[in-house]
């Protein structure tokens, strides 16, 4: 990077707030997905004013900018364009306000998701979006990607919990969208901004809803002989008029891998399990727990267990939430997909994933948010063997195209980022994408804010149908 720009960054944020040595930058060239790209500098602002000055500098110097929280994203959303500026929010991590009466918190983007819930726990409140990475991921990142989590089945994704934003626009101007009211008149720019993947502006203060903790929580584990029986049960539960707070599915291979790692108490010989959580009013939870149990047994569940203590419940969830760590023990690399299908298509989609696994000769585990049809096929491969990477990418594309074909989407909560933008033209028409691109250009006219994310470049639009390899990886020589 131009040393003069680095010097300017130091003037803005302080001498200890900028990294530009290659060995330091290496830590910022990746996220939790599989892409890499080295930034030119990383800057750690402490104030909104500094973010604004950084934006002005980037614009004047024509250097791309990307915001970064904890780097736990799975779609490359927080990876810089080669040589760009990473604005890392690890020094803007204050909870600015807890407003109990209005059921809101105002936080800086670097606040860790789980920390907010822990901070307000003594008030009987919590922040509902709960990505698996919630111990590390930041609320700024959640806003950028519109993150979900297991409990989004009942409570919705991040956008359903954000009511106001302070945003630094590419010009450096600081603007406000919405506030503490649940909704605001005029165009809902708060809702539009959430999930815009850092392409419209950078948020520096976020107003979120705090929910009252439920009076009662029941966590059940439905154990099935086959994946198909478990998948059929998902629809049967909703058909019975029950909306669980969370409804997760783990297939046999995945649960055995997790069990070996964290001893969550999952049965080693099952074909699949459903992890079902109900919450709310005590009486209502008890009735629903009984009903869910009955549905599972009707659908040939071998057994339905219910967590008797908070420790047992925590253990069941620990298994679910540490799944990705467990996989690290059995495979050098894995590729997590995020496709969504209509709930009734889950059994057929899982069968298709089984065929894809055979076709590309790769192990694919399934651990996912079954209740809302959000699949997370985990494709195992070894990145040291280029043919395996290629097969993993092809398998992934195959699965996502299937999701689209049955009426679904390519991402439920991870975002499009770099990795799925070349599939956007399968999901949207050129005109749809053109409208989105014109909105991006209107706010981000020089395309310096997180370029090459979310929307395909025109070149990719044309090449997608014949592209067997991912253009990004080709560029990177992978």
């Amino acid at each position: 990077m131009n040393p003069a720009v680095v010097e300017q960054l130091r003037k803005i944020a302080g001498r200890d707030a900028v990294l530009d040595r290659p060995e330091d930058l290496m830590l910022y060239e990746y996220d939790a997905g599989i892409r890499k790209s080295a930034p030119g500098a990383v800057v750690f602002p402490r104030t909104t004013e500094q973010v604004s000055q950084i934006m002005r500098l980037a614009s004047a110097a024509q250097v791309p900018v990307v915001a970064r929280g904890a780097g736990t994203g799975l779609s490359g959303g927080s990876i810089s364009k080669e040589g760009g500026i990473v604005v890392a929010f690890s020094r803007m991590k204050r909870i600015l306000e807890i407003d109990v009466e209005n059921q809101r918190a105002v936080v800086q983007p670097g606040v860790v998701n789980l920390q907010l819930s822990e901070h307000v726990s003594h008030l009987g409140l919590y922040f509902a979006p709960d990505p698996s990475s919630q111990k590390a991921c930041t609320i700024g990142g959640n806003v950028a990607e519109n993150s979900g989590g297991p409990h989004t089945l009942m409570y919705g994704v991040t956008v359903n919990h954000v009511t106001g934003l302070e945003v630094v626009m590419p010009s450096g101007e600081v603007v406000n969208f919405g506030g503490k009211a649940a909704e605001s008149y005029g165009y809902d720019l708060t809702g539009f901004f959430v999930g815009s993947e850092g392409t419209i502006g950078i948020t520096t203060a976020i107003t979120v809803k705090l929910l009252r903790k439920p009076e009662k929580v029941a966590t059940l584990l439905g154990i099935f002989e086959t994946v198909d029986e478990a998948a059929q049960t998902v629809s049967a539960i909703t058909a019975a008029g029950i909306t669980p707070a969370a409804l997760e599915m783990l297939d046999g291979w995945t649960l055995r891998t997790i069990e070996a790692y964290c001893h969550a108490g999952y049965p080693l010989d099952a074909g699949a399990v459903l992890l079902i959580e109900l919450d709310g009013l005590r009486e209502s939870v008890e009735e629903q727990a009984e009903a869910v149990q009955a549905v599972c047994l009707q659908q040939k569940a071998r057994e339905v267990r219910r967590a008797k203590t908070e420790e047992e419940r925590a253990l069941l969830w620990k298994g679910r939430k540490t799944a990705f760590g467990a996989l690290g023990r059995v495979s050098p690399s894995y590729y997590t997909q995020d496709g969504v299908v209509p709930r009734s298509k889950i059994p057929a989609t899982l069968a298709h994933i089984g065929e894809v696994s055979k076709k590309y000769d790769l192990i694919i585990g399934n651990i996912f948010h079954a209740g809302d049809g959000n699949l997370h096929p985990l494709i195992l491969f070894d990145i040291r063997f280029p043919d395996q990477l290629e097969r993993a990418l092809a398998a992934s594309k195959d699965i996502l195209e299937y999701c689209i074909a049955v009426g679904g989407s390519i991402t439920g909560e991870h975002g499009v980022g770099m990795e799925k933008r070349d599939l956007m033209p399968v999901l949207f028409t050129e005109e749809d994408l053109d409208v989105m691109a014109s909105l991006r250009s209107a706010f981000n006219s020089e395309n310096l804010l997180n370029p090459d994310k979310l929307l395909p470049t025109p070149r990719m639009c044309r090449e997608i149908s014949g592209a067997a390899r991912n253009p990004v990886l080709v560029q990177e020589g992978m």
Partner: protein
Amino acid sequence: MSTATTTRFGAELRAICDAGYVIEDPALLRQHQVLGVVPLTVVTPGSADETAAVMRVANEHGLNVVPAGGFTAQNMGRKPVQVDVLLSTSRLRDVEHYDAADLTIGVGAGWTVANLAAKVAADNLYFPGDPALPERATVGGLLATGFCGPHRHGYGGLRDYCIGVRFVTGGGRKAKGGGRVVKNVAGYDMMKLLIGSYGTLGFITSASFKLFPAPRQTRTFIAEFSGAAEAVQFRNHVLRSPLDPICLELVSPDARQLLHGFGSDGPWLVLLRAAGSDTVLARYRAELGPAVARELDGIEEQEAWRALSNFSHTVEKRCPQSLLLSLQLPLREVGPILQQLATVAGPLRLKHAVVGRFGVGHLLAALWQPTGSTVPAKAFTDALSGLRHRLPIDASLAVLDCPSEGRADIAWVATPTHVESMRVVKKVLDPNDILNHGRFLF
């Protein structure tokens, strides 16, 4: 505009839609007035493609286009200078997708809310949109106005359960956001831009929604309070409790007079609607305690909620010269705003009535002149500006209707959101400003 010009674009419109769907007969046009303005044409496209073609013609000729559904919310906004094309959704009545097992549905924008609700009710599912006049209000209009009724409390707003939208931009481009699945973050969230945009950005052609299991049993608990402060206190008690009602509605004494079935006189009411088994309802009874004066179920219950959903329509019908406001407030500001309304209305000799889902900070307020008295039109504009000056930080306000004399001078929307950023969106989606030109924000 001369007759010749009208004919010219009329012919182009007829080339797009079948001639039967382009109305130019003056007698028929008079039935489609927007705030007293007779449109030059009424066009009813049969598809998104036709809509896009109409919109392109409108752009070429610089025509003012007013999107229309069931005509239940056209009283909002400034009187249009001219309506060249009234663009109706009434032929957009396809079912794009529906599988009860998926708990989602996608329908054309011309579906009425009542028909949509009835269709899914047959499968024991529930569509929570509850606007005034659901038999006439359309899906497109519901989204464009962003209107929410009492069930907003328990089911969230349209921004929470609309999962996909197809529309034609003011510039004539076909576009979509979201899709058919309940969880989807691919691409920009266009639904959010369209919801509550009052037809100023695009013409909605279809939309998809998340559905909910229909409650098997509901009950409404009614509590009475001598003042607004006590009602707000009761709300806070409910919000802090483990209870999870589907509606929590405030009704002011004067609102009771306007609405049918609420008694012509009496104190403030709070209506709480709960869903669940007998055991669950018993728990509500125990938690709510002696505050509850009576309970409603069955037809009586349904009618009470229908009356509350219809509040805005009732006001327009019974008090034609009234100011009707919708307020979105942080929860803490509900009490103070109720006081401000009284402070503003009293000296101007206006009566005022309030209903609203005050557990989520949404109120509807009507100000009108009492029977037998004559209040100058300025009283309404004074009341509005008085209220706007007292509007708390983070609150927003939309005027849904006002007496005709004040219509030209009213600022229809007050919002904490950066207005220039909204203008950027408007410029992109409706570059020639042909959609509802000059009626709302811009």
